[in-house]
């Protein structure tokens, strides 16, 4: 019984840390330019497919594909910003909300067109198998994914706090107008943030591809959950997104375990709605 509970806690941390990485990418974009990227989940899907095809066509393990996924998604994010999102920045808020829905629908169906809706799996990744921690099985690829996510998250926080570019991003996030006055090129910061945020979710995709099913619609639910995580953690707060990712990992896993696995996502959404009622600005917002 205790072992079962421990298993659930382990699972919570495992999925939670990957959620955190996905959410950090989203909150960066949100915090800097106040745009929700509804295609964020689909960016994750593209990252997963990049890793899959690198493995299937060239035998490259997902872990080694990380730089490519990061670079590929950075480019995708940059292009989406430059040619689509930047054009709605000055317009009505509704258009800003809706435009990335268009990107999302386009990308998901682009994937269907190129790769069919079939489910794929990477069957022999470098890291596979299970460690036993007492009586609790710990999946090695999941552990690697989760450890990797934490490391990358920490690296992002360091980048934002310690580098000049990172600080420019944080400054723009805190106050656009002041950042402009200080000579920070906010358009470039926007593009960079969109790129970095997308690169992060690309890396998460590479991690997930080690053990998760890969298919065009996989981004849907991940995307929705990441929005809730970001709102739960407090828009624009990197630390909040990290914390919230872990918490939601727990809510989902324990909720599914104690109530009904079929309802685990509904429980996540419910917890989100309750939090937003009591504390609209989120945990650390």
């Amino acid at each position: 019984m205790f072992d079962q509970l421990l298993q659930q806690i382990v699972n919570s941390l495992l999925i939670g840390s990957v959620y955190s990485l996905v959410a950090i990418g989203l909150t960066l974009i949100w915090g800097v330019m106040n745009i929700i990227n509804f295609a964020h989940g689909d960016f994750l899907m593209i990252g997963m497919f990049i890793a899959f095809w690198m493995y299937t066509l060239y035998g490259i393990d997902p872990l080694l594909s990380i730089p490519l996924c990061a670079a590929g998604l950075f480019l995708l994010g940059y292009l989406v910003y430059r040619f689509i999102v930047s054009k709605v920045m000055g317009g009505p808020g509704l258009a800003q909300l809706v435009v990335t829905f268009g990107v999302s629908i386009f990308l998901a169906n682009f994937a269907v067109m190129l790769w069919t809706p079939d489910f794929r799996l990477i069957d022999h990744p470098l890291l596979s198998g299970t460690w036993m921690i007492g009586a609790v099985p710990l999946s090695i690829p999941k552990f690697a994914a989760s450890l990797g996510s934490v490391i990358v998250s920490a690296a992002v926080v360091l980048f934002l706090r310690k580098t000049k570019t990172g600080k420019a991003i944080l400054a723009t996030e805190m106050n656009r107008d002041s950042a402009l006055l200080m000579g920070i090129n906010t358009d470039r910061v926007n593009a960079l943030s969109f790129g970095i945020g997308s690169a992060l979710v690309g890396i998460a995709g590479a991690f997930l591809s080690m053990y998760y099913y890969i298919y065009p619609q996989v981004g849907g639910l991940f995307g929705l959950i990441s929005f809730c995580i970001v709102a739960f953690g407090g828009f624009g707060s990197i630390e909040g997104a990290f914390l919230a990712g872990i918490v939601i990992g727990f809510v989902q896993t324990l909720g599914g375990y104690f109530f009904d696995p079929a309802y685990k996502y509904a429980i996540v959404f419910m917890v989100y709605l309750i939090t937003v009622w009591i504390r609209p600005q989120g945990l650390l917002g």
Partner: protein
Amino acid sequence: MRTFTSRQVSVSAVVLVLLLFFPLVARGSFPMHVMIMLFMFAMMGVAWNIMGGYAGMFSFGQVAFFGIGAYTSSYLLVTHHISPWIGIFVGGILAALTAAAIGIPCSNLRGHYFAIASIAFGEIVRIQFNNWKLIGAAEGLTLPMLPESFANFMFHSSKAPYYYIILGFLLAALIVCYLVATSKMGFYFRAIKESHEVAKVLGINFVHYRLMAIMISAFLTAMAGTFYAQYILYLDPESVLILPISVQIVLVAMLGGAGSVIGPVIGAAILIPVSEITRVMLGHKGTGIDMMVYGTLIMLISVYQPQGVWGLLSSIGRRAR
């Protein structure tokens, strides 16, 4: 918007007459189907507009009310043999009550925050219905094939009666929207959209009025759901409770012009035929190309005509005078 120009009245009259004669000249059931879907989405766009375009609550969860309406009347019909004409009101009321229940925790949310909460709400409803044995869960609910009649709200030999019914519903929704827009409620909605400070300082209880907006919107959307159930005769959560339907409703209102009474009708008139036709022409092989076109359309609309077509048309009209 409040007083109609004689030109607007005459154009509307002509359009209405054309629409009334359309079923007599339409060839085949596909054009009729497109028009029926057009009217249905236009109606839901008008309903969305009441809470979104006027009161500033951008809901991406309208599909929940659509589904509640569809399932309520259908469940009452299948299990208790209650007429859909009664079921449609029960569905509407249930949707309105659900709207009030979700509206209270969300009463302080604005913009993006409200949008995400509405999506979460829609998903909760979908997941619930997907697991609810009472109404068929994931297998869905099939409506009984009753003899064709108006009382049964069921027609098998022709789509024309459905066409006229949904057109009637749409006109009713437009009248409701017009009455709201030109009344104290409409003005208060627009004040709430501006800011909570402005609303408070003018003595408006914004929680109360936000709830009113959501409830009216939910009721009308649920009516469309019942119509859909009676038209298609089969419901399942993956068809009637999915996010893309909510997005389509928002698009219809946005493309036409959020914040105007007639906007969603124009938006539906453009968007629905395009999406239905691309689906038929490009979508049957399951390649997803039709949806790629749809996604591209969304991006183009958002970038190049975010204020909607109505704004464009009325400014042309003004300049022409």
